[in-house]
């Protein structure tokens, strides 16, 4: 009886895993085919491997990927900078209005993103940031800063106070305490924030769609929806583009899967 249940649960798990991974198998396999092979035998291995698909797709997505990388790294850096500073203030100082300031930072998590879509669009236009990297960086960074502050505050409050006091006695400045103690000891949380923010920034579609136009600032997500190919080549080129665009994060995931799991689940706090 027990063995049957165990076997059954493995079988079910296997089916779930198969169904989850199947589309990605199809994506990779068909990215090496031309139109005919995709339409007739989507499940089979390619008869003739069309590596040319990747060459053609690469040309279409490389610039947007570079743009997305610039934006992603900038958003991560900005979010880390502002939330490290804020978390340090909340964790280390007692000051008037501390609770109020915290509330001001957290309250905006309640507002659904699309309510702000139009006014944020107007705002970046007013600031002359339409179709610039600044416009792509600031509003998404504002969205992640609250979660970052929240997570880092908890982490820094968990650091033993005697450590801070000892450093103070030695005459360390706040900047030194921040960079030598608070930040290094919050390492795992910082990794979580980097991944959470990075995933959101790289995968963001709606904001780049409304806040940019043309190739100079085009983000990879938008570029993927606008890829072109000839009828004979077919969707294989598109699929190759999708694979290329997914690769950076997949590679990172291979090296830091634990941090990714933390980053994906901590995103839950973000609402």
């Amino acid at each position, binding site marked *: 009886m027990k063995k049957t*249940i165990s076997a059954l*649960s*493995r079988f*079910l*798990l296997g089916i*779930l*895993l198969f169904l*989850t*991974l199947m589309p*990605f198998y*199809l994506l990779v396999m068909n990215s090496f085919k031309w139109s005919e092979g*995709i*339409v007739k035998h*989507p499940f089979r291995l390619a008869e003739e491997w069309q590596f040319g698909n990747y060459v053609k797709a690469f040309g279409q997505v490389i610039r947007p990927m570079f743009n997305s990388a610039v934006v992603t790294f900038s958003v991560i850096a900005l979010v880390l900078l*502002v939330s490290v*500073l*804020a978390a340090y*203030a909340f964790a280390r*100082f007692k*000051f008037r209005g501390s609770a109020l*300031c915290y509330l*001001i*930072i957290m309250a*905006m998590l309640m507002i*659904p993103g*699309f*309510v*702000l*879509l*139009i*006014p*944020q669009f*107007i*705002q970046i236009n007013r600031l002359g940031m339409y179709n610039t990297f600044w416009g792509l960086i*600031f509003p998404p960074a*504002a*969205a992640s*800063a*609250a979660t970052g502050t929240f997570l880092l505050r908890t982490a820094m409050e968990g650091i033993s106070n005697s450590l801070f006091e000892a450093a103070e006695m030695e005459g360390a400045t*706040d900047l030194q305490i921040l960079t030598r103690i608070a930040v290094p000891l919050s390492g795992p949380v910082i990794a979580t924030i980097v991944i959470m923010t990075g995933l959101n920034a*790289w995968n963001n*579609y*709606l904001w780049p769609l*409304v806040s940019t136009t043309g190739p100079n600032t085009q983000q*990879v*997500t938008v570029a*993927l929806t606008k890829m072109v190919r000839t009828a004979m080549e077919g*969707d294989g080129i*598109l*699929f190759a583009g999708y694979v290329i*665009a*997914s690769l950076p*994060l997949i590679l990172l*995931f291979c090296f830091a899967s634990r941090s*990714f*799991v933390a980053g*994906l*689940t901590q*995103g*839950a706090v973000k609402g």
Partner: protein
Amino acid sequence: MKQKSLFKLIKPYLFLLPVLSLLIIFKYIPFGMSFQKSFYNWNGANLDTFIGFQNYMEAFQDRIFLQSIGKALIVMVVQVGITVSIPLVTAELLFAMKSKRAQYVVRTAFTFPMVVPGVVVILLWKWILGGDTGVLNNILNSIGLSQLANPWLGDTKTALPAILAIGFPWIGIAALGGMQFLVYFGALQGIAGDLLEAAKLDGVNIWQRFWKIDVPMLASQLKLMVTLVVISSLQIFESIFILTKGGPGTSTMVPAVYMYEQGFTYRRMGYCSALGIILFGFILILTVFNNKFLKKAEVVE
């Protein structure tokens, strides 16, 4: 000396200055503007007249908008159903595996699709669900069920269900089932081994253990996940915008896509702001209700 103490006094605020300015410039001011402009006939440029509650009155008589809320509620019910079922069962199945190593490998295999950009998953399913050359129709044809083949996204009856089916069984989709799966699995691992051991000795069967131990122990996670999915499902945008833009007809028109259309296609930005404020209120009410209702359910337990 005096200067130094003044510096000490304002120091905490200096640390908060960057985050507060970021939020005020890119969140608070836009939100205030959104609220204000919901009372204006506004196209984002030259047309800008105060019209009182007219936008709101129009919204409550706008058939497409009201229907779009109905569609969002359907999405919500389906996605809440998904949230509390398949990821939970999958987490249980994985937790039941004895080998820690195998657990790790399987969890990793489930996690890697979650880092694939959402747009890629949507475009991939666009092909799977496609009419002539779609993979699903290809399968149906090859197993002799060609009468069932259908342009899934192009048919008013099947477009919304097809969009909701994207990512089936949803464990690889970070926001819908993947995060839930990881959270539930983490929580199961957190249940004390003693408790499970004791239950085993008392002869508790799997079914009893699931309902009497696992579900109560996961109550707070389940509640949080339901709340998050309620909020996110009402904002569903990307999949529908990329695949059908609300069509065919208005069969997949959800609030966020309708707002986008009103705001950016028709430049009715005042009206769009009003729609946003209404939806914000709606989400707020649902969240409060959700918290109250789920709390009660817990007390009954």
